[in-house]
């Protein structure tokens, strides 16, 4: 049963393959509960189309990491998931570990946060890259990894690969991990905060490499600026739900009060101090009544404390809906 969505217009990425309407990742009604009863995701719908990069932005506890891990099958054993996660035509929810091991690398690639933690410090970087095809039983790489490394800015890859991880910078190591994750050209590359453990200056280079290496990308990021610069669309998450989706290139302020608060709290060079947002986000263990953001929202109305706003017209806010 094919799942295709045809839209009337096709958008083009600024520098990259043409985005067409075919859906690479389709998430419907995803709810994830942890062993202790906490709801990490409270109902998420998301789509990543072929050729595009979607950024999941949010703070700790928003559920963005849980979402990314659900897409690559790395949820903890105690987690219970309901809903649907489709990669292309294939339903991924409920697959066994063995099936995931076969699919990871071929159907979906994964780049994690700390490259130094991902690499064995006692083996060479080349060994780490080679693992990506050895783990599937291939003795030869499916594509020319040396060329790919060079393309992403690693000079003299053949010699450099003999180094140990600590001899490379975090940015270079993350590029190597990106090449390893995309050796089989998987339709989707998932990156969980790939630049958070690195110096801020290196982030741009790594994210550009990620975009080049992946056909379609799901990027988890806590930094709005970086997300806006390197993705086609941004999905803002709060308390286990998506509260707003927008095109990165869309001008003007975001519509959801939380997205606006997030933007205002992001330091931008030259401006004054970023704006504070008092209070804390509700955690997975809290039972939510009404909008999760109502307690901290300057525009909250009566309806906001009673009923949970759904994601309609790309924003989940009663005040916006009533406009």
């Amino acid at each position, binding site marked *: 049963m094919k799942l295709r969505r045809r839209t009337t217009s096709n958008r083009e990425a600024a520098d990259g393959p043409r985005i067409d309407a075919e859906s690479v990742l389709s998430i419907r009604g995803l709810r994830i509960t942890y062993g202790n009863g906490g709801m990490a995701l409270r109902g998420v719908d998301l789509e990543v189309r072929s050729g595009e990069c979607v950024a999941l932005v949010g703070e700790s506890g928003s559920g963005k990491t849980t979402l990314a891990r659900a897409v690559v099958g790395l949820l903890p054993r105690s987690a219970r998931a309901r809903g649907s996660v489709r990669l292309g035509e294939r339903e991924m929810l409920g697959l066994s570990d063995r099936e995931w091991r076969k699919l990871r690398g071929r159907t979906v690639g994964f780049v994690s946060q700390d490259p130094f933690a991902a690499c064995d410090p006692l083996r060479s970087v080349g060994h780490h890259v080679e693992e990506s095809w050895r783990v599937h039983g291939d003795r030869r790489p499916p594509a020319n990894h040396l060329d790919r490394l060079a393309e992403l800015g690693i000079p003299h890859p053949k010699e450099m690969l003999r180094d140990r991880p600590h001899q490379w910078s975090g940015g270079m190591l993350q590029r190597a991990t990106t090449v390893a994750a995309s050796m089989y050209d998987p339709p989707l590359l998932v990156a969980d905060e790939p630049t958070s453990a690195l110096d801020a200056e290196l982030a741009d280079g790594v994210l550009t490499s990620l975009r080049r290496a992946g056909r379609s990308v799901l990027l988890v990021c806590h930094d709005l600026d970086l997300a806006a610069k390197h993705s086609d669309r941004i999905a803002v998450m709060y308390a286990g739900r998506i509260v707003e989706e927008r095109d990165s290139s869309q001008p003007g302020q975001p519509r959801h009060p939380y997205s606006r608060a997030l933007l205002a709290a992001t330091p931008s060079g030259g401006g004054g101090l970023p704006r504070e947002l*008092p209070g804390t986000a509700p955690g997975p263990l809290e039972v939510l009544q009404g909008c999760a953001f109502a307690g901290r929202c300057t525009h*909250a109305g009566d309806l906001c404390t009673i009923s949970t706003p759904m994601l309609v017209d790309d924003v989940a806010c009663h005040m916006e809906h009533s406009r």
Partner: protein
Amino acid sequence: MTTTQERSRSKPESRSVVVRLLRHGGGRVGVCLLVVVTVALVVGPFFVGDPNDADYTNELARPSWEHPLGTDLAGRDMLARTLAGGRYSLGIAALVSAATLAAGLLLGLIAGLAGGWIDKFLSRVFDVLLGLPWLVVALAIVGALGPGLMNMVVALTVIGWAFFARLARNETIGARDRPDVVAARMAGVPVRRIAWTHVVPNVILILLVAVTAAFTEVVLALAGLSFLGLGAQPPTPEWGRMLAETRGSLTIAPWLVIGPGVGLCLGIAGMLLVSDALRDVADPSRHKGR
């Protein structure tokens, strides 16, 4: 209408190590086992006969109402001997553990806090002691002092404390760069107070983990030395000796191993469970992620 209220996170955690230990699943089981064993060994001997009461007309008797665990080669009641023997096997091991803990803690703290030549000198002492084969040292000491339980305690303590001293010293030195200790140093808190309030509680906990984990080895070392005739002298019941004594009679009287065997298992298992639980309590990050 923003609220400035910030909620503190989830469930209340206890400051007390004992409470956290009891909340830990494995810890609860371990503590229960140890309590049961301790009560049995302290109170039990009052309810049974004399462990040294030999009755050569009743050698190697099967378990019966009169002798629930049978009798040994000399016709002595195995239950009584097991309960009495436990006081030696586990009790002495606990004594040795406590002594090595105390000595190791003290000297390790001194080395770590004093630094300089005191640390250098003490570290050499630790290294030398740790490099010696324990059996040879035990033989030497017992050879000099004569066989017997108390002399064996001395021997095992002399062998064992260096391990804990080195551990305590390393932890103390490592604590120097912990952020909360650095903040205290910069605030001008005197070194002694920093040691007492920040460092020592942590070091004690870590040593407790190590000592409970090493308990098995102490029990086995004790049993081994007794087997060689260096420790408990006959007719003193000691589980290691008792097990060794069953060797010849195992095929005709297999029940002889029940008493000391079960006793050893329960005691050691309880201690190891407590050790694991303490490790989780000391470093909560180990427990997360599953």
